[in-house]
């Protein structure tokens, strides 16, 4: 056979190819933004910092006020806030994943290649997860950090916020992926 030098990829090799693809695309996107849209990038960065700082200040004052009245209110506030964000994440990840799996041209390209469909789904899932969740971190961190400051939490509290936020993202994103894939499968 003419294609005798080609072999189906192992799962690890597939993941490696997709990782390199994402890195290359991210690199070119970042380079293009810095070269051609410096004002836009600067504005987004500055406004994000201002937004984060404003939220931090707001939550700091809020927690200080609530802590002096009734500490249990904070627990309710956290539950309501993260529940709302999780519902939003289920929808946003689901919409992104559905669009890229079933309506996007990339999936059609990849499905004609000798890779496992599972690898394609995992690739698109990671992509949707990234796009849907950066806002979660942007909104979640200015709430958790001032809480730690107000309650005088130890440094381990801040250290474990990152895996906490990541797991809070993964659970709704996985639910969204099930919602997208199971009915079609």
């Amino acid at each position, binding site marked *: *056979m003419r294609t005798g030098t080609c072999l189906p990829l192992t799962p690890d090799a597939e993941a490696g*190819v997709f990782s390199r*693809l994402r890195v290359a695309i991210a690199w070119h996107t970042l380079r293009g933004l810095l070269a051609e849209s410096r004002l836009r990038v600067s504005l987004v960065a500055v406004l994000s910092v201002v937004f984060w700082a404003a939220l931090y200040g707001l939550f700091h004052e809020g927690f200080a006020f609530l802590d002096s009245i009734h500490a249990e209110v904070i627990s309710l506030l956290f539950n309501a806030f993260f529940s709302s964000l999780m519902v939003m994440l289920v929808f946003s990840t689901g919409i992104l994943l559905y669009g890229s799996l079933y309506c996007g041209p990339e999936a*059609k*390209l990849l499905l*004609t290649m000798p890779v496992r469909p599972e690898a394609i789904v995992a690739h698109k899932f990671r992509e949707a997860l990234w796009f849907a969740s950066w806002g979660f971190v942007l909104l979640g961190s200015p709430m958790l950090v001032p809480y730690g400051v107000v309650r005088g939490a130890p440094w381990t509290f801040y250290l474990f916020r990152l895996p906490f936020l990541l797991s809070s993202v993964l659970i709704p994103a996985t639910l969204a992926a099930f919602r997208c894939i199971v009915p079609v499968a």
Partner: protein
Amino acid sequence: MIEFDHVSRTYGPKTAVSDVSLAIPRGELFALLGPNGAGKTTSIKMLVGLLRPSRGAIRVCGHDVVREPRLAHLHVGYVPDEPTLYDKLTGREFLWFIADMFGMPRHAAGQRIDREIAAFELGEFADDLAESYSLGMKQRLVFAASLLHDPDVLVLDEPMVGLDPRSVRIVKDLLRARTQDGMAVFMSTHTLAMAEEMADRVGIMVRGQLRFLGTVAELRAQVAIDATNLEHLYLELTSGGAAGPAGDGRGAGGRGTI
């Protein structure tokens, strides 16, 4: 190399492809013709694994495209009607990505990438981002990508759309060379002159059925009209007049008829 074995595809109550059987051997260039909505693109999508047949089976180099899709895909190069690229990759990076996806060894991949860049005259823009490419440049890059792994089977869906005359010539020359080297080509086209010039056999699809399968000469012999070119023959067949389905015994395509 390519076998359609009583293949049908339905979308709800609508039958897009109905009981098509055909075989395309090594080294043959087969052109599939037909009006819009005849089932050409559905047939191609089933062949490259984008759709599953509702009935029947499709095999590429002996591998069933539904049961052994990865093995079948290793032997197939595909050029869709609309080129799909990553805008944020350069042409060369895209070719490397395709080489990686087909599990090509690095050294061989580098050589073949250089070979295809030279063959399709991509050198001037191979290191630019694909977002800056014209449609013709994208199409040439997709052609290069489809041939990178030296496929046994090349599937082309309206391959000449967007190509300038020089690129068309390059593609025609490459198709001739590759088919002489043993590659089978399955091509859907509206360009009748292209089919007449290039194809060893043509198939004409109408409303999901293969109405004719054979050489252009056999088509001329079959359609009893005073027609000298493929356009007249094609219009005669697709207007529902002269010929019945190839399977009613009037097709002249031998083993490929239905």
